[in-house]
């Protein structure tokens, strides 16, 4: 009887969860941490940074100074349809680098975060609670 019940439940689960999907989207190119670490404030210029990292995603003017943003984004989406219930979880993480320049386009600061690799496939009720 127990085996029959388990078989029925397994069949119901199999039929009911026949619509599952995983999706991954990468936006822009990955940023090399080694290249970012090698950037030296006071030494490198905006030209050096663009030669190494390419065209920025965004340029912000700060008076006579400026800041460039570089970003690589990874989105992972998990979905499941179970009979009458749809579940979907989206985890979006980025590698983001801001580089700041003075009036002479000399690099002054580098701010970097690398967390795109931490993006995970997770159903909504399984995600970590904050």
């Amino acid at each position, binding site marked *: 009887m127990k085996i029959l019940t388990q078989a029925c439940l397994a069949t119901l689960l199999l039929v009911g969860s026949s619509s599952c999907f995983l999706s991954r989207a990468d936006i822009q190119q990955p940023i090399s941490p080694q290249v970012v670490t090698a950037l030296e404030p006071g030494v490198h210029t905006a030209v050096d940074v663009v030669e190494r990292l390419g065209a920025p995603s965004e340029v*912000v003017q700060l008076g006579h100074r400026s800041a460039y943003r570089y970003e690589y984004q990874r989105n992972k989406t998990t979905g499941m349809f179970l009979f*009458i219930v749809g579940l979907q*979880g989206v985890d*979006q993480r980025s590698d*983001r680098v801001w580089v*700041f320049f003075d009036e002479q386009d000399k690099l002054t600061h580098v*701010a*970097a975060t690398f967390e795109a690799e931490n993006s995970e496939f*997770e159903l909504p009720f399984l995600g970590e609670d*904050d």
Partner: protein
Amino acid sequence: MLLPGCLSGSYNRVDRGAERADTLFADLRVGEASMQQCVEVLGAPLTVRESGSGADLIWGWERNAGFNVTTSIPLGHSASANVAYSKVSRGARGWTLRFDQDWTLQSKREGRLQELLEMSSQPSSLPEGSRTP
């Protein structure tokens, strides 16, 4: 098999970015902390905006979860009633650090990310002829 036509529900969750610990924010001293110290602790901000002769750096992360339930009740041969209920918890929060022109922390604020973005000045576009490599 007709059940999905009468009743359906969904539960969605969106996570964007990693949350930073409150202690990191609390430890940053206004008037003392340099931008170098701040970005070493907090990493790259979500956005940067001009603020007077200095700049606002805004960090943010988002945890949104919500569910939706819809039911359809037949009322006759050609009529039916639909009832839907949805609830979304919005958890986009963040911090704004304002720096003066010497890149010293002038003020800090925490709150809902949308409000922080609205309070901060809009990004200025580069005028024509600006220096870009």
